[in-house]
């Protein structure tokens, strides 16, 4: 976002000019309420990313919500079985717009090495995905990288209000 301040005016009360789209994007990308849909081992890495060592709160994504109605980003963390698939779809449908989806770990990206009868071969066969974070499990740095990419995407997009 481009912030322009006129120093003479700013000193008298302050204002900045911006495009509304950019302003909303800036607000949205730094106030991500995530819904952690945690089903498997990647959850451990999700927890370490969320806790104080790596601290997702630095990126404004520190408050997970456990109601899809209150969340913006669906973090799908772990293997999704065909039995679980309808639940994932339902959670996604229950989230209010605008919403984004992060596929966390290779299981959610492609099914990973679970090329078998039980596992969904990538959650993008069920719901749209915005950011893929590979790794089995991804390291926290990788997760933060994915989060920053999501923020860039949120910033760039047309903001529906």
């Amino acid at each position, binding site marked *: 976002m481009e912030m322009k301040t006129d120093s003479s005016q700013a000193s008298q009360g302050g204002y900045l000019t911006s495009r509304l789209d950019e302003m909303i994007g800036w607000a949205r990308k730094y106030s991500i309420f995530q819904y952690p849909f945690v089903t498997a081992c990647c959850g451990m890495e999700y927890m370490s990313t969320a806790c104080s060592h790596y601290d997702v709160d630095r990126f404004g994504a520190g408050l997970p919500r456990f109601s899809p109605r209150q969340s913006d980003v669906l973090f799908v963390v772990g293997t999704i079985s*065909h039995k679980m*698939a309808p639940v994932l779809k339902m959670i996604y449908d229950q989230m209010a717009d605008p919403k984004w989806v992060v596929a966390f770990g290779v299981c959610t990206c492609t099914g990973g090495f679970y090329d*078998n*009868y*039980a596992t*969904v*071969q990538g959650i993008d*066969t*069920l719901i749209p995905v915005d950011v893929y974070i590979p790794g089995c499990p991804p390291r926290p740095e990788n997760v933060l990288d994915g989060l920053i990419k999501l923020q860039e995407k949120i910033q760039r997009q047309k903001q529906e209000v």
Partner: protein
Amino acid sequence: MPGLTDWLKERFPSDVLETHAAHGDETAVVTRASLPVIAAHVKQDPAFDMNVLVDITAVDGLTMKWNPRFEAVYHFLSTAQLHRLRLKVRVEEKDAVMPTLTGLWPIANWFEREVWDMFGIRFEGHPDLRRILMYEEFQGHPLRKDYPYNKRQPLIGPRN
């Protein structure tokens, strides 16, 4: 010192078909009809004292050309005597039915449902023989060797 399977052979000479031991764990292959009696015996006899049924599983010998095709496998543990015993029963494909052990160890309920779900071996006398891991809509038994490994039956999403 005689092992557990030697005692079993002594008590059930015509029902114990084969025995072997590996790494200190003993295995006896027994006839299907005798399984409930032998299982009750290993639970109640103080020499065996198998208070825990650790697992029930099965093996599909299709690719190894077994005849009969399946083997049902029961693992027992005695937490007092600190010994283990494995019982195996050979099961024909055409007659893939086993007697239930739910009356002896309640946990057999879920184990037997799992073996039914994965291998398609039915358990006669089971109070509620439904699939436990897969969904009701699922067709077939995925751990059978003739189930194609890449065959998928999704509830939602693309089918192959």
